[in-house]
């Protein structure tokens, strides 16, 4: 019934998955340019960053607050002055300033901005990273293809593609990964596994197909491969030079972004790095100042580093959160949830660069209830269109219809690619 599971099995067996798999082909990690399969890094701004304090400032207006703007490397583009280092590299990316959605609640907004679909009580849609790792398998990879760093409340899920496509959650890589070390020495571990073979075999008697469908053995084998994999070195950011580590910033988030680059370099398909703390209903401006101290160096270093290593053309970078924040400044000097005209950065992976889409008013119709507001930015961009763009650029057939477990056909994305972001070939 569950097609994706069977597909996966076939893929797994076709690729001859076994303990005897050769180690990582190091040259594969060194492939660059067009030959290199695309990867995705999502910088998730959990809580909803203010567009006005990031990529769409309106200084000197009623809604702008105290935030000032600075010039960037991209002529004509100004961003909030909290991001001097991003300003140096933002021309490598594109800016969308007119994202619109109808979801003003954290959980629902996160669902939409991670899957491209509004929540539906009858099924769970897969996130971008799950689709990418499902559609673009990498059989040389011994660690999970879809990884979530630094958590957050709603990590990316596999949805109807199956839990095996859920992001593998690692809270802080510098603390090591949970449950990754065998509890006993090699000799005993081998005995335990040899015994496991015997017990598994007797359970398989008369249940060959059923046991295969459980993926039990596949997951155990993958877990074992991961436990001893050389590729785990991707998490060891202390292998990097001090200069590089300094550039990303000595913060948990900075280390997460650096790990993301190393993971992508190793062949991981999709990495999500979360920075929480953007839900500034009070003290918005102070809050965003603090946040920027982490985001500015890490994001700038990531883009620069990817570019330096010739990885940016094969790595799509998306910096986004569940919504923006109200133009109106509330009584607590805060901004509330605002899904009608917010910003994101997207680029790399062979997309065009330096494109700025959409525009918000300096004095939009401000109503008390953000969800009922009729304010609309100029040139509104719908979330599904952004998702179709990203999937297409990764090399995924974005409008492919797959059957969900209850037999409902569902496209990976319901949107249309934004042609203005796609480089002409």
């Amino acid at each position, binding site marked *: *019934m*569950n097609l994706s*599971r069977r597909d996966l099995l076939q893929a797994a067996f076709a690729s001859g998955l076994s303990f005897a798999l050769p180690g990582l082909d190091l040259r594969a990690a060194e492939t660059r340019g067009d030959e290199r399969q695309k990867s995705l890094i999502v910088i998730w701004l959990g809580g909803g960053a203010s567009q006005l304090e990031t990529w769409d400032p309106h200084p000197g207006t009623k809604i702008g607050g105290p935030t000032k703007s600075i010039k960037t490397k991209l002529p004509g583009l100004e961003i909030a002055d909290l991001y001097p280092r991003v300003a140096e590299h933002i021309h490598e990316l594109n800016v969308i300033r007119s994202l619109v959605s109808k979801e003003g609640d954290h959980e629902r907004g996160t669902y939409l901005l991670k899957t491209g679909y509004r929540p*539906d*009580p*009858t099924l769970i849609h897969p996130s971008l990273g799950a689709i990418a790792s499902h559609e673009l398998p990498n059989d040389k990879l011994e660690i*999970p293809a879809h990884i979530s760093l630094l958590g957050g409340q709603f990590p990316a899920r596999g949805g109807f593609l*199956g*839990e*095996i496509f*859920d992001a*593998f*959650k690692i809270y802080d890589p510098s603390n090591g990964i*949970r*449950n*990754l*070390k*065998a*509890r*006993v020495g090699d000799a*005993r571990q081998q*005995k*335990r596994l040899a*015994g*496991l073979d*015997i*017990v*598994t*075999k*007797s*359970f398989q*008697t*008369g*249940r*060959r*197909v*059923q*046991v295969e*469908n*459980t*993926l*039990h*053995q*596949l*997951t*155990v084998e*993958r*877990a*074992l491969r*991961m*436990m001893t994999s050389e590729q785990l070195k991707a998490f060891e950011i202390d292998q990097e030079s001090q200069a590089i580590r300094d550039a990303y910033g000595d913060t948990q988030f900075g280390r997460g972004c650096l790990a993301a680059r190393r993971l992508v370099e190793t062949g991981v398909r999709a990495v999500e790095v979360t920075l929480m703390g953007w839900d500034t209903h009070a003290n918005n401006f102070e809050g965003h100042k603090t946040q920027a101290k982490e985001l500015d160096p890490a994001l700038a270093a990531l883009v620069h580093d990817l570019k330096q290593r010739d990885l940016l053309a094969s790595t799509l970078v998306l910096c986004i959160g569940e919504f923006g924040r109200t133009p109106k400044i509330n009584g607590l000097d805060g901004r509330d949830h605002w899904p009608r005209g917010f910003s994101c950065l997207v680029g790399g992976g062979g997309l065009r660069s330096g494109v700025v889409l959409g525009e918000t008013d300096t004095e939009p119709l401000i109503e008390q209830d953000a969800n009922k507001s009729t304010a609309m930015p100029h040139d509104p961009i719908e979330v599904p269109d952004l998702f179709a763009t990203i999937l297409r650029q990764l090399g995924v057939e974005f409008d492919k219809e797959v059957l969900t*477990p*209850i*037999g*409902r056909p569902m496209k990976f994305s319901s949107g249309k690619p934004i042609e203005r972001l796609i480089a002409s070939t």
Partner: protein
Amino acid sequence: MIPETPQGVEWYQVADASLAGRMRHAPATKGSPMRWNLLLPGAVLLAVICLVSFVTHQPLKGVATEESARPTADIDESVQKVNLFFARRWAGEDLQSAKQTDELTVLRRITLALMGTVPSLEEIRAFEQDRGPDRVPRWTARFLHDRRYAEYFAERLARGFVGVEGGQFIVYRRDRFLNWLSDQLETNRPYPELVREMIGGNGLWTDEPEVNFVMAGYDDGEGFNENKLAGRAVRAFLGQRIDCAQCHDHPFDHWKQNEFAGLAAHFGQLKLSPVGVREDRDLKFEVEDRNSLEKKVVEPAVPFGEKWEPTEGTRRERLAAWVTHPENRRLERAIVNRVWGLLFGRSWIEPVDDLPDPSGDEIAGPKVDGAKHPKTMKPGEQDLLDVLGADFREHGYDLRRLIEVIVASKPFLLESKSDVDDASRLDRMKEHFAIFPLTRLRPEQIIGALLQASSLTTIDQNSHLISRLIKLTRSNDFVKEYGDLGENELEDRAGTIPQALLRMNGNLVSETIDAKPFTASGRISQMAPDDTKRLELCYLVCLTRRPTPEESAYFLPVLEENRPQRRGLVVEDLYWTLFNSPEFAWNH
């Protein structure tokens, strides 16, 4: 943990003696003459003993005895009806059912489904020594009278009724709701009474825990969400996902947007007051028209079976009466499908809460052209849900009895293996329950089984406080790390890598297999008389079966070559191996 060994009997044979003792009425203690100067210290001592035993054994209620837990008397005819349905179905589908499985496997299925754990060695011994007739039905009844059933099953049902979210603690108490539901299951109240109280109840969520059903649809900023409540009620109690009809017409069945609004209007007079939930008859339920953006008042209405809705009572009482009307067969079909799902790990119709319309013009709902549910029955055709549903209704909506009937019917007793090796034929056997389905154990079942396997005696409300405390505090963390399935826990799932890592290398597993003097592995390694017994005990405790000859042939030499100093380590290794086998982590 293990009682003192009577002379001439090996310790591993007597675990059942304590259970047998527990099952008999304890003889009244005779008072003996006592001097006054001993009476006061004696009384103090007695009081202390009583208090300590009260604290460590609380709650004392809920321990089933054979006398109090007799199987329901007249289920044979019902079981035959179910068996007849399957005999016809399998013949019609040209399917040969799998063979009947052994009773220990059935015992494991029952304890996993009803209490979320594997049977203890104590229970296995007592079960095997029970030579009386109808062993499985009697043991089923006993577990159904165990408080562990009430609590575990309440959690499972609650996921369908109110979901898993803790919600806003100040106005919503899921824990109270769970306690209430456990109590209802323990006293085995007729199911429609529970539904009526959940939908129609008034009062404070702390005093009247059933109102947490409506409080789950309350949001601080926006008040009661009538749409969410209507969607939840129809989905949980009538087995139809009309939530989609809130925005568009339902893809499979005939539900239309305006019918949804009529249902939601039944929750339109809900009001939160200082005395909790109540109805305010002056409130109007308004809906915004999608096209004209005008607000219009919607009166309560039901999409079919109008005559079942009384004209008296509050709106919610009227809705509750309509939902639970004996002719509204969706109610019985939905709960039967859900209970079937909880027993097998897979519901009869999937997903568990999106059933096709029942056959028959009377109740089919409004006639609209459109796609139909793939499993819609033809007029006059009886589905399993109709057979079991009617039986459930005719026997007083008795949940305990429903479970007994399903457990005694043929599909529950089939093997999960078969000679058939063809995937598509196996799929069809699985679809028609001609083979017992393999389903992934829920995290609660995994941890229940892990902890139970680390003890030789039964971990229940009579266990030592520390065992229960471990179970309570460790469960939540483990469930979270293993991946809580939320309310859609009956979906078909495969294993994941974090789960494999957690089972192989996690703290809890490592601690439970540690061969210490008081753990099961420790006791087995030190006290079993020989390796054959040692191996058998590990298998019984972890997998509820004995080793096959091939397994013995492999493991006995492994056990033997390491005696005796390293015996503990070898048993630990064996425990690890058994815990990590697919057989342990999957219901079969």
